């Protein structure tokens, strides 16, 4: 959460997002291990799949931004044009 709040670089935001998702998955596995239950691992695998999809989409957006606007800092994005 610290990285998501303080950093503006797209790559750092993605890394922070990955860390948040890994922390959530770690909670699933930790509680599943503590409670001797394998259901948590199933939830963790599902969460990991969704997280990978999100990372792929964000990575694609970052590369598109880099290609079109030649920027990596998301705060330097040009304003969106209004379409009527």
């Amino acid at each position, binding site marked *: *959460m*610290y*990285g998501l709040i303080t*950093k503006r*670089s*797209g*790559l*750092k935001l*993605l*890394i*922070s997002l*990955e*860390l948040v998702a*890994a922390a959530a*998955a*770690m*909670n699933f*596995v*930790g*509680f*599943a*291990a*503590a*409670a*001797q*239950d394998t*259901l*948590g*691992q199933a939830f*963790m*695998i599902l969460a*990991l799949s969704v997280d*990978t999809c999100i*990372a792929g989409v964000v*990575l694609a957006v*970052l*590369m598109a931004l*880099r290609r079109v606007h030649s920027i*990596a800092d998301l705060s330097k994005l040009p*304003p*969106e044009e209004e379409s009527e």
Partner: protein
Amino acid sequence: MITLVNDILAVVLVVSALFAIEEKRPIISVVCLAAFFLALPLLYLSLGAVFAAVFQFAIGISTAAALFLVGQMFEQKAPRPSSLRKNISTLGVFLAVALPSVIGLGQIEAAVSSSNLPFSVALWDLRALDVLAQAMVLLVTAIGVAVVLSERRRG
């Protein structure tokens, strides 16, 4: 012994996550993230979650590889080197914040396994504060996104 390994892995996870966020150069940042993704399956293995460890290892390493390529793309010519003193002070603050939860990890695990509580009871009785804090974070994030989008539309 297992608890000690868990504690060491937890500290490695915290430190590598810290450097992944704080490091100026994208390549070094991605390398720290790869170290995080290497330590995480080891922690899962020591917790006895073999399937989760295998999945995490495969997905983590592939993510790190993809991020490494993007990091190389984002690498700038001459980045300003980060000062050692600032890095050490930031590491100290993060360890001071993370140490209570690392120490408390074993106590929570012992409490749950000794009383053989169901998952929902363990979640709501032992980590209720965390769950409520996460709900608050999600709520604040949703409100923040709504505010940002409305400002963008107005501006």
